[in-house]
């Protein structure tokens, strides 16, 4: 492993995105996640119970199905609710940082000058809580696009206008 012998800038001068204090998304979004989670849980329980009641299968397959479903929901619970405080974003002069996840934590940097267009959406559920989702599209694959869900109106608009202003200033 070689040193940074061919870089003209000292290591200390390169900004570190980990040192930035990030802003959490709106706490009310946690309730939206709870609602979605509960609906999914109830639906799965209904489907499973109708299946067990009407379709005759060996006993071990029932236990397996219930076990798998429970495991999935425990994992989702951990990811959504233990991981909720991890949902943070940060805006710097030239890029936007977003982190999300608990079982699998993902941190992304999207430079403003790579953003193609920007979308603010609000599903029915989000509308009840006055929250919005921000979608940032890049020229890369859709896996590289950024979605920040659970922002209040003011924050969403602020980020959007900041992004648009940076593009204009290019």
């Amino acid at each position, binding site marked *: *492993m*070689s*040193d*940074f*012998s*061919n*870089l*003209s*800038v000292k290591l200390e001068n*390169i*900004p*570190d*995105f*980990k040192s930035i204090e990030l802003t959490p998304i709106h706490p009310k979004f946690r309730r939206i996640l709870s609602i979605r989670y509960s609906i999914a849980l109830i639906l799965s329980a209904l489907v499973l119970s109708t299946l067990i009641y009407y379709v005759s299968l060996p006993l071990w397959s029932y236990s397996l199905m219930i076990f798998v479903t429970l495991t999935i929901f425990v994992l989702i619970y951990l990811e959504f609710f233990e991981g909720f405080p991890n949902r943070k974003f940060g805006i710097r002069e*030239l*890029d936007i940082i977003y982190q999300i*996840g*608990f*079982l*699998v*934590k*993902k*941190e*992304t*940097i*999207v*430079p403003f*000058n*790579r*953003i*193609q*267009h*920007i*979308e*603010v*959406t*609000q*599903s*029915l559920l989000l*509308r009840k809580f006055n929250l919005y989702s921000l979608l940032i*599209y*890049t*020229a*890369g*694959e*859709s*896996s*590289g*696009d*950024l979605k920040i869900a659970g922002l209040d109106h003011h924050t969403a608009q602020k980020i*959007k206008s900041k992004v*648009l202003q940076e*593009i*204009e200033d*290019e």
Partner: protein
Amino acid sequence: MSEELNFRSPQRQSFKGVFVLFITDLLKNVRQNFIVLLLPFVNEKIRTDYLWIFLLILSSLLLFQFIYSYKSYLNYQFYIKKDALCLDHGVFKKSNLEIPFYRIQNISIEQNIIQRILGVVGLKIDTAGAKSSEVRIKALSEMMANDLKRELVEIKKTIDVPDETKKNTTVSTNQGTEPEHVLKLGFSQLLKVGISSNFFKGIGIIFLVLTSTYDMLSDLFNVFYDDDLNDELYRSIPKTLSFTLFMIFFILITGFIITMASVMFKYFNLSILNRKEGFQVNYGLLKKENKFIKRQKTQIIERETNPIKKFFDTSNVYVSQASSSRVNQKQKIGIVGVNDQQFHKIFQTLFKTDIDKQFYVARTDIRYLIRSFWFQVLMTLLFGLPIYFFIDPVVAFVIGSIVFIAVGMINYLTVIKSYVGYDALFLKIGSGSIHTKSSYIPTHKVQSISVRQSILQRSSDLSDLIINTAAGSKKINFIPYDKAITIMNNTNYNLHQTKEEWM
């Protein structure tokens, strides 16, 4: 005199948009659910007793569909803001989309058959990037579409810097002097390329051919004999280890020959010509191909080699480009038979710089083998189980062990060869197992960058690094977390520093 439409205030589409949306969605629903629609024709009970319920549900669904289309039309509004085109739409999920003018690459008017019948057109706005970043206004009167397009084009003219690098047209480049040949593949080189090619493709073709002829033979057999071909074969196959090994050997040899032949046919007379804006690539015997590698659009250059290729001093080069045209496809152009000198020439021409040897490297940790262990188990079962049931348990055990060890070795090689190297101008990503692949991405071609860490990786401080470009994403697994962060910070920093455009 037509009324001057003011696009600064929110506009709706043509009212016919309701019907365009309705019919389009209806067709989509029918296509997805036509099995359900066939129920009355198939099931006697539904046809006689429940037909009226079925029809009732169907007509209420149609009604809801129509109401939804109407609401969609009402909520769909577009207007021009100071620096962007804005679109508001949505019924259940409201959306506000803003496309900065600066990002609009292409504006086109299109018309599918439904639009033609209803007498409207669609306006498509392309930004750089994948299909998901196309925007379509689906039902405008032709006049409105033309007005909007005209206004957008006018605005773009005032914004766009008249710059040679932004021209989308390919300039005719016969410069007077003979274009230089970077590479010209003679027959002996072509042979070397064929011999050193990956023969798994050939094996795949064999399996396809075998299974289809087997089906054909099996049917023929049933016509002439009472017996089933399956049983006949089962009785006659010698259940010995030597026979199984012979079969495998036979398949490998035939696969090899097929691969060699198909590669040689494909890349016959390969030539690369140096042009003003990039490279002209021609090849093919039966199917002649002419491709152009544009310097501006090149995002990633990959070089692939294997022990046999190294012996012949040849390698494969894959150039991935981004496309800003209507098609918006990512193009990957493959070139074979490239030696070191030719590769340096290609690299230098496309990226305007030499390959730097000094890279800060982060290697994939050996613990990645844990993740790939499951694939190993799967492959062993895939090979072992059929042999166990149809030939012999002992043979199955032997073959299974061979497969387990072989896949394990391949996994090990994959880990050893996986790394990401970084310097001020480039990212170099190593990958491959039996073959060795190096991918070069100029830092300024990066679109976004992420690091991912699962809870299992956290305990050993490892992570996956994901580099997104306009020609696809690259993932490097199980590298130290702090190194991933360093690479992210530095790539990002250099991305901002550079004045160069990514396309």
